[in-house]
């Protein structure tokens, strides 16, 4: 898909995109309506009980923490929280659904009418777009099926399937946006931003690869300037942010080509094939859906008081956007760096602890180390921030050593590598390796005098205008001092002697 092609289409047509995002509340201990553990994977049917298997006579009891997590998500996204709400049954038969109804929410979701401001693009082209959030409701996830005898584990062509209910009953929140999204990039940024918020709330690990965050999209196009909406297609199976972007780009161009050729878009569900880089229609169902929603009689309704909602609101952590703005305002970090740190909760915590230890005036170099050496180290080792062997205190001490001129920046990188390896504090490493940088003006001055005396020709050239030679002189002094001189001091002393 050529990017130009999408841009060309978007000049003539406006895309109208709404997202439906399912997120498993993976940080909870137990399932939505029973005490089975919430974990990923495991041997089939080993985390099940009469409730999540839909055995005769078993009854659901809602998980308080799941209700609170949903309301927390709603508050983070500026939603109105329902004062009265309840679960409904959504009735349809499917083998991964043990009761053949899903306990979900219908006309009374916990959260509605929210929004999320999404920053799209970089630099001069950057803009902010507000995406409305229609609703956020709580429901239960289905089991999983393994399709045997077909190609690549797909349903089509499979001989039979195996059903595992370990995932069945995992708490799931469904977020539905207004059709406010206009480009694939906006959709991607929305999903990414939402992920950073859910991570900050600590309600889910939001893994698109493992399916704990699943994004479906409704897409239609209309000629620029038109008011009436086009027929939409639903696109599913986008297992990464890139897939979300690419699938939408493909779908928009596909619909435009169809309309350009005089055809019509059909309302249908389409499956994104990441390998083939295209969407294809799923075989349509034999019957129209009739979910026969009715209030779940096994549970009683919810009534939330102002006090209760206020107590949940108290638990809202600082969200990534606010945190980023604080880093820019308080620490003077560049916006881009501030965002990279703020969106990663563990990294942000590390950063703030290191800044606490090093002092706020060193926040910028701390940020540079966090985004530079530390991130590279994490990438290389695959370790998490909390368990990578480097503590905020270690990094803070390293930054202070550089700032005080005890070691050079180059030396600091060596120290970083060694502390990552050994777990020793940087000061101890500097001491042990005799790396202490010489800042004593007297000692440096002696060497400077010696070097200038040994190179009269270069001194002559410098004084006749080749001021660029200063660097060469610094190099000579540093070599004499085996690299342990403070380059700033060397520079200063050299200039005093050369410019006199």
């Amino acid at each position, binding site marked *: 898909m050529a990017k130009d092609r999408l841009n060309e289409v978007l000049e003539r047509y406006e895309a109208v995109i709404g997202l439906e995002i399912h997120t498993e509340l993976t940080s909870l*201990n137990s399932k939505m309506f029973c005490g089975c553990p919430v974990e990923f994977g495991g041997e*089939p049917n080993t985390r*099940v009980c009469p409730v999540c298997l839909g055995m005769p006579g078993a009854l659901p009891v809602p998980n308080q*923490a799941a209700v609170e997590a949903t309301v927390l998500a709603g508050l983070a996204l500026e939603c109105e929280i329902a004062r009265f709400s309840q679960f409904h049954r959504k009735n349809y038969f499917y083998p991964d659904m043990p009761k053949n109804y899903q306990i979900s929410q219908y006309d009374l979701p916990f959260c509605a009418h929210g929004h999320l401001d999404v920053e799209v693009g970089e630099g001069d082209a950057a803009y902010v777009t507000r995406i409305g959030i229609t609703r956020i409701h709580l429901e239960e996830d289905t089991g999983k*099926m393994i399709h045997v005898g077909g190609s690549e584990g797909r349903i089509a062509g499979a001989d039979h399937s195996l059903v595992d209910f370990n995932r069945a009953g995992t708490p799931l929140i469904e977020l539905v946006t207004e059709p406010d999204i206009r480009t694939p990039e906006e959709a991607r940024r929305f999903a990414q931003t939402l992920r950073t918020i859910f991570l900050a709330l600590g309600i889910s690990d939001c893994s698109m690869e493992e399916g704990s965050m699943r994004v479906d999209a409704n897409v239609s196009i209309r000629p620029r300037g038109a008011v009436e909406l086009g027929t939409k297609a639903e696109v*599913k199976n986008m297992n990464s942010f890139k897939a979300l972007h690419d699938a939408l780009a493909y779908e928009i161009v596909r619909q435009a080509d169809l309309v350009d050729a005089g055809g019509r878009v059909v309302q249908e*569900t389409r499956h994104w094939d990441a390998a083939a880089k295209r969407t294809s229609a799923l075989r349509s169902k034999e019957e129209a859906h009739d979910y026969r929603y009715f209030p779940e*009689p096994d549970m009683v*309704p919810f009534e939330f008081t102002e006090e209760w909602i206020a107590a949940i609101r108290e638990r809202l952590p600082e969200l990534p956007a606010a945190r980023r703005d604080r880093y820019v305002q308080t620490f003077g970090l560049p916006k881009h760096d501030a965002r990279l740190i703020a969106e990663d909760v563990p990294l942000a915590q590390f950063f703030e602890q290191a800044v606490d230890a090093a002092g706020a005036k060193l926040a910028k170099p701390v940020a540079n180390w966090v985004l530079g050496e530390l991130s590279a180290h994490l990438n290389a080792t695959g370790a998490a921030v909390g368990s990578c062997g480097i503590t905020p205190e270690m990094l803070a001490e390293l930054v202070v050593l550089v700032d005080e001129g005890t070691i050079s920046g180059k030396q600091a990188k060596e120290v970083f590598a060694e502390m990552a390896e050994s777990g020793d504090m940087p000061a101890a490493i500097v001491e042990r390796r005799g790396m202490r940088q010489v800042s004593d003006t007297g000692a440096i001055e002696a060497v400077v005098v010696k070097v200038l005396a040994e190179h009269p020709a270069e001194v002559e050239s410098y004084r006749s205008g080749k001021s660029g030679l200063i660097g060469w002189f610094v190099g000579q002094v540093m070599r004499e001092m085996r690299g342990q001189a403070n380059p700033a001091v060397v520079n200063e002393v050299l200039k005093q002697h050369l410019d006199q």
Partner: protein
Amino acid sequence: MAISESDVRHVALLARLALTDEQVRHLTVELSSILDHVSEIQSLDLAGVEPTAHPFPMRNVTRPDVVRPGLSRERALLNAPEAEDGAFVIPRIVGAEEEA
């Protein structure tokens, strides 16, 4: 309240019941007669009356987020008509959406 044979067939599909033609004929008559009887409530003036889903007005009943022991796999599969590798076996799925 008349209900037609085609209504009955549609409802039977929703309810996943393979009915014989004879069953469809009988049910059309029986359901019509029952619906005819129960339709009398449609003549009640219920404007402004709140629906009752629960006979007792309780609110906010939840459980704490605590793990409890579940079923052993053996017991989970005890009644399975067909099981394989610890999973329930189903025949192929035709004409349905793939899972998201």
